[in-house]
C-alpha cells in the first residue's frame, strides 16, 4: 500500500482521481473464506444509510399534519414546541439563513439549524431514522420519518406543507447552504521554526475563567 500525506488535502487526492486500482483488491477468489454471505434481507435490516443523491431512500410518504403531530409527541420535549431549541441546550432545527453564519451578521455565534446550515436534506431523514428520538432510536416507521422530515423542512420554508414528503420530494429539496462548505485546505498556517528573539514583546490576553472548570463530584456528573 502506498502512504499518502494526510496533512495535505486527502480530499484533493480523492477528487483528483489518484485512486488505488481495483487490481490491488481483485478478490475474485476469497483466500480465507471466513464469514458467510449475508442475505439481502439481513443487509436490508441494517442498511439504513441515505445519500444526497437519494440512494437508500425507502418507499413511503408522510404528511405535514402527521409530521406536526409526531414532532409534538417525539421531538418537542427537547427541541422545543417551535423546533427552535426551546431555549434549552438541544439543537435548534428551524430558522436562520446561511447569511446568519457570518460573524459580521451575527457577532455572538453562528445561527446553525437544519435550514441555515445543513447542506443536504437527505441527512435529515438519515439522522432521524438512525438516531432519533434520542433514547428510542430506529423506532419510527419510514412513513413517520418522512412525515417528520417534511414537517421540519416545511417549517424551514424548504417544502410545501400541502404536499406529502416522499423520496422524490426529498431529492428535489435544495438546501440554502449547499454551497457553504469548502474542502480542507490544511496546513493553513505556517509557523516558522524560530528559536531566538521571535517576539519583541508578549502580553497575556486572557486567563482561565473562575467557576467554569468543574471541581469535585460535579466532574462525575
Amino acid at each position, binding site marked *: 500500500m502506498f502512504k*499518502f500525506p494526510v496533512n495535505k488535502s486527502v*480530499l484533493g*487526492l*480523492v477528487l483528483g482521481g489518484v485512486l488505488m486500482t*481495483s487490481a*490491488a*483488491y*481483485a*478478490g*475474485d477468489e476469497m483466500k*480465507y473464506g*471466513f464469514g*458467510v*454471505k449475508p442475505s439481502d434481507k*439481513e*443487509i436490508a435490516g*441494517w*442498511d439504513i*444509510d441515505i*445519500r444526497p*443523491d437519494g*440512494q437508500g431512500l425507502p418507499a413511503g410518504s408522510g404528511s405535514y399534519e402527521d409530521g406536526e403531530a409526531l414532532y409534538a409527541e417525539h421531538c418537542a420535549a427537547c427541541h422545543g414546541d417551535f423546533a427552535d431549541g426551546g431555549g434549552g*441546550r*438541544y439543537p435548534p432545527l428551524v430558522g436562520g439563513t446561511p*447569511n446568519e*453564519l*457570518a*460573524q459580521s*451578521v451575527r457577532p455572538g455565534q*453562528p445561527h446553525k439549524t*437544519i435550514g441555515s*446550515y*445543513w447542506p443536504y436534506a437527505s441527512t435529515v431523514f*438519515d439522522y432521524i431514522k438512525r*438516531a432519533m428520538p434520542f433514547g428510542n*432510536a*430506529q423506532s419510527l416507521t419510514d412513513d413517520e420519518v418522512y412525515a417528520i422530515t417534511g414537517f421540519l423542512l416545511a417549517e424551514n420554508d424548504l417544502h410545501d406543507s400541502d404536499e406529502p414528503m416522499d423520496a422524490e420530494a426529498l431529492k428535489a429539496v435544495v438546501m440554502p447552504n449547499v454551497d*457553504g*462548505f*469548502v474542502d*480542507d485546505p*490544511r496546513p493553513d*498556517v505556517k*509557523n516558522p521554526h*524560530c528559536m531566538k528573539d*521571535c*517576539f*519583541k*514583546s*508578549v*502580553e497575556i*490576553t486572557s486567563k*482561565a*475563567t473562575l*467557576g*467554569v*472548570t468543574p471541581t469535585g*463530584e*460535579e466532574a462525575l*456528573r
Partner: protein
Amino acid sequence: MGKNIMDKLKTKSRAVMAQAERESALLEPTRRSFLRGSVATMGAAATLGATGGAAFAAGNPENLPPNVPEWSKMLGDRVTAEPYGIPSQYEKNVHRRTVPWLTPTAESSISFTPIQDLHGIITPNGLHFERHHGGFPHIPKEDFRLIVHGMVKNERMFTLQDLMRFPQVSRIHFVECPANSGAEWRGAQMDKLQFTHGMVSCCEWTGVKVSTLMEELGVKPGAKWVLAEGADAAGMSRSIPIEKIGDDCILAYAQNGEMLRPEQGYPLRLIVPGFEGNMNVKWIRRLEFGDMPWHHREETSKYTDTLSNGKSRRFTWSMDTKSVITSPCPEYPMLGKGYHQIRGLAWSGAGKIKGVDISVDGGKNWMPARLEGMVLDKALTRFVFDWDWNGQEVLLQSRAYDETGYVQPTIDQLRAVRGTWSIYHNNSIHTWLVKKSGEVQNVQVSGK
C-alpha cells in the same frame, strides 16, 4: 498467635488505615480539598502543592525509619484477592472527569483522560477518554456481526471469531477528539489540564487491517468511499476515503492487550490513525463501500469548522501536530525553586514527532526538549526538559514539530485564518502562567 496479639495488630492496622485515609484525602484535591465553584478554586492549586508536599514529607512517623511499618510484619493479601487487579486505593483521585455544562445529556457527552496523572505514552484502558453520541452499549460478543457490503465483489458477514482468525496486527496510536481544547478558541477558559487537553489517549490496538478484508472480498472499480457505522443508539456514521481505509485502518478488538472496554467499542471498533476521534467508529456493525460520500449528520451539521465569513470547512479529518506540558500544570504546581523536569506529551496525525521546543518567556525564545522513550507514528510522544526554576513568574510553553516539517502554531496564527467560531482542531501552542507561589494557571498570550 495469641488473641491479644491479634487484637493489638488489628487495632494498629486500623490506625494505619485511618492515617492512610487522611493522607489520601490530602492528595485528593478535586474531591475534598477544593471548594466547589467558588473563588477559592484559584488558591486551591497552591494549597494542593503545599499540602501534597507536606503530606509526603510528614507521613505517619510510625511507618517511617527507624520504625518498621505493619506491612513489613503482617502478611499481605492473598493471590486473586483481586481477580482483576485494580489501582492502589491511594490513587483514587486518578479518574476520568466530565464537564457537565458542555453537553445537554450525559449519554451524548464526553469524559476527559487525567493526563496530568499519567506517565509514558500508554493510556490505561479504564482512563481512555470517552465520547459517546448515544451512550455506550453492552454488546454480547456472540450477538456481534460486521457486515461488509456495497461496492465489493463478495459481500460478507463476520462474527467476532471470524475476524480474529484473520492475520493480526498491533499498532500504538493516539485517538483525539477534534473538540480537544475546543473551549479555548475564544480565550483561556478551563483551569485544569485534564479539561484543556484530556480528550486524547493512546493505546496499543490489535485487530485486522481493513486492507486485509479488502483484498479478501475484492473492491469493485469506482469505489472511492466507505461508510463506517456503529451499532450504538446514535448509529454513529462517517464517510472515509478509500485511500485511508485501505492504508492503515484497523478493525480492532483489543486494546492494550485485552479485549476492548465497552466504552471503547466492545467488541469491535475502527481505528483510523491520526484522524478525528469520532471516525474511529466504536461498536462497528457495518462497512459499506460506495462511490461518493454520505454527508451524514456527524460530518455536516457537526465536525465541520465554520470560518468568520460563514463558510465552513468539511472533511477536516487529520489531527494536526500538538503538544502540552503535563508537569507542571494547574493540578500539579511547582514545589519549589531549583530543578524541575518539565514533562509533556506531543502528537501528530501526520506522522512521527520530530522534536519539541520549550519556552519560558511566552514564545520569545525557545530551547529544544528531549524526546523520551518511544517515538512512534501517530502516537503520543513524551518530551522532557531539565529546568532550573529561579522562582520568578514565567510563561511556559511547548511547541512540537513533526517529520513533515509542520510546526505547532500560535493561537493568534490559527485565529488569523479561521476566526474564533471553530469548535474543533485547536492545536495551538498552550501557555501555562507559573506564578511565584508555584501555582500554574491556564492563560493565552499574544506576541508582537
